[in-house]
């Protein structure tokens, strides 16, 4: 699998300060065991100044490392420079770099494996009902449902709906209601459905009903994109009504 042509992902940015440091070490053909990081400090700083390859959302990470480099450099010009002692920041950073280089190797390997695997198509990769749409649908975990659930709970709490309802809700009734809605509309938009509920109790019961239905494979939760809406569909293999 290592022999397959490396499938490179081009990025405009260095993944982080360690990525940039390794790049500089390689570029200057330095050996990580002999290197004094002070040597490449100014080059690192000029990348930072010109924002060359610097991911704007990661600037602070690059700056933290810049501070470490400057500290290392300032120590190196002291009258009695310490050798790479146990606790020296230089040794620490070098250790991190060596470990990070391994991570990069593993990442490349995983990338090659991903490339190889993607040549093999599996069933259900295309969901039957969406064969003509342009996006892919992925199953979501209870975790994501919970995310939306808590957001709604918080909103409801702000609206002071807490405990105002005297109505009682049962999972049995909810399950019937949900099955009915799906039969009628083909699916349920999770956010829209939860927003329509009018008490914490009803939300809790609905949420646990949905979780249980998903757990029993009666429902499938699908999300169109990372932050897209979650839709619930009947699992064709199961009878919704039981």
């Amino acid at each position, binding site marked *: 699998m290592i022999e397959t042509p490396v499938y490179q992902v081009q990025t405009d940015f260095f993944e982080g300060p360690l990525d940039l440091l390794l790049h500089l070490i390689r570029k200057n053909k330095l050996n990580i065991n002999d290197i004094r990081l002070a040597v490449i400090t100014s080059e690192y700083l000029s990348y930072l100044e010109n924002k060359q390859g610097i991911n704007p959302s990661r600037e602070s990470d690059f700056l933290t490392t810049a501070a470490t480099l400057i500290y290392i450099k300032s120590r190196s010009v002291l009258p009695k420079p310490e050798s790479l002692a146990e606790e020296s920041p230089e040794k620490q950073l070098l250790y991190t770099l060596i470990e990070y280089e391994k991570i990069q190797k593993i990442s490349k390997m995983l990338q090659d494996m991903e490339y190889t695997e993607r040549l093999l*198509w599996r069933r259900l990769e295309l969901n039957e009902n969406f064969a003509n749409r342009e996006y892919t649908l992925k199953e979501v975990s209870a975790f994501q449902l919970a995310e939306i659930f808590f957001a709604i709970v918080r909103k409801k709490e702000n609206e002071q709906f807490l405990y105002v309802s005297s109505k009682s809700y049962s999972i049995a009734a909810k399950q019937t209601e949900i099955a009915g809605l799906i039969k009628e509309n083909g699916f349920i938009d999770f956010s829209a459905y939860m927003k329509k509920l009018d008490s914490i109790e009803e939300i*809790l019961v609905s949420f646990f009903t949905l979780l249980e239905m998903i*757990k029993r494979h009666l429902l499938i939760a699908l999300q169109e994109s990372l932050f897209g809406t979650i839709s619930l569909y009947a699992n064709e293999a199961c009878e919704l009504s039981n």
Partner: protein
Amino acid sequence: MTSEQAALIEAILFVSKDPLELGRIMEFLQISDETEFEKILQTLEKEHFLDRPERGLQLKRSGGGLQLVTKPELHDSLKDFFTIKQATKLTLASLETLSIVAYRQPATLAEISDMRGVNATGPVKNLLQKKLIRISGRKKVPGLPALYATTQEFLVYFGLNDLSQLPSLEELTELFEEKEQPSLFK
């Protein structure tokens, strides 16, 4: 029919679970003559599927399209294989009670009954017997009612490692509301 055509038809039918329109397949194989295509399909169906007892699949035409399905004589075996033997499921009343205990624990019987709007004595007893909840203490109010909390078995039932794996509000905030790091260059 070339073996490449046969392989391609098998692969596209395998990947798409929906019946595929004949027109789309013809276009894909760059065949324009319907009679020719029909002949290809019939050969494929007979020689690659029906006449081969070692194959578990067959072609099926439905809804104006073509689909791969399992052979009908395998139905009983497949049903046996894919039947999930489930342990007795919790009753819906028990689940309802459990959901309240999980998120509001420790809770008293009265608190649970209040939230459900019906008396929860039965389900609580049932859950205690199934060891999904336990008495975790006494509430310091008149009558010292028992407080119920979830158990180890509860975690197993819901596939959780520990209670903290029930997604908490904080957890979700940490993971799902990543704030952009403030840029220091402006």
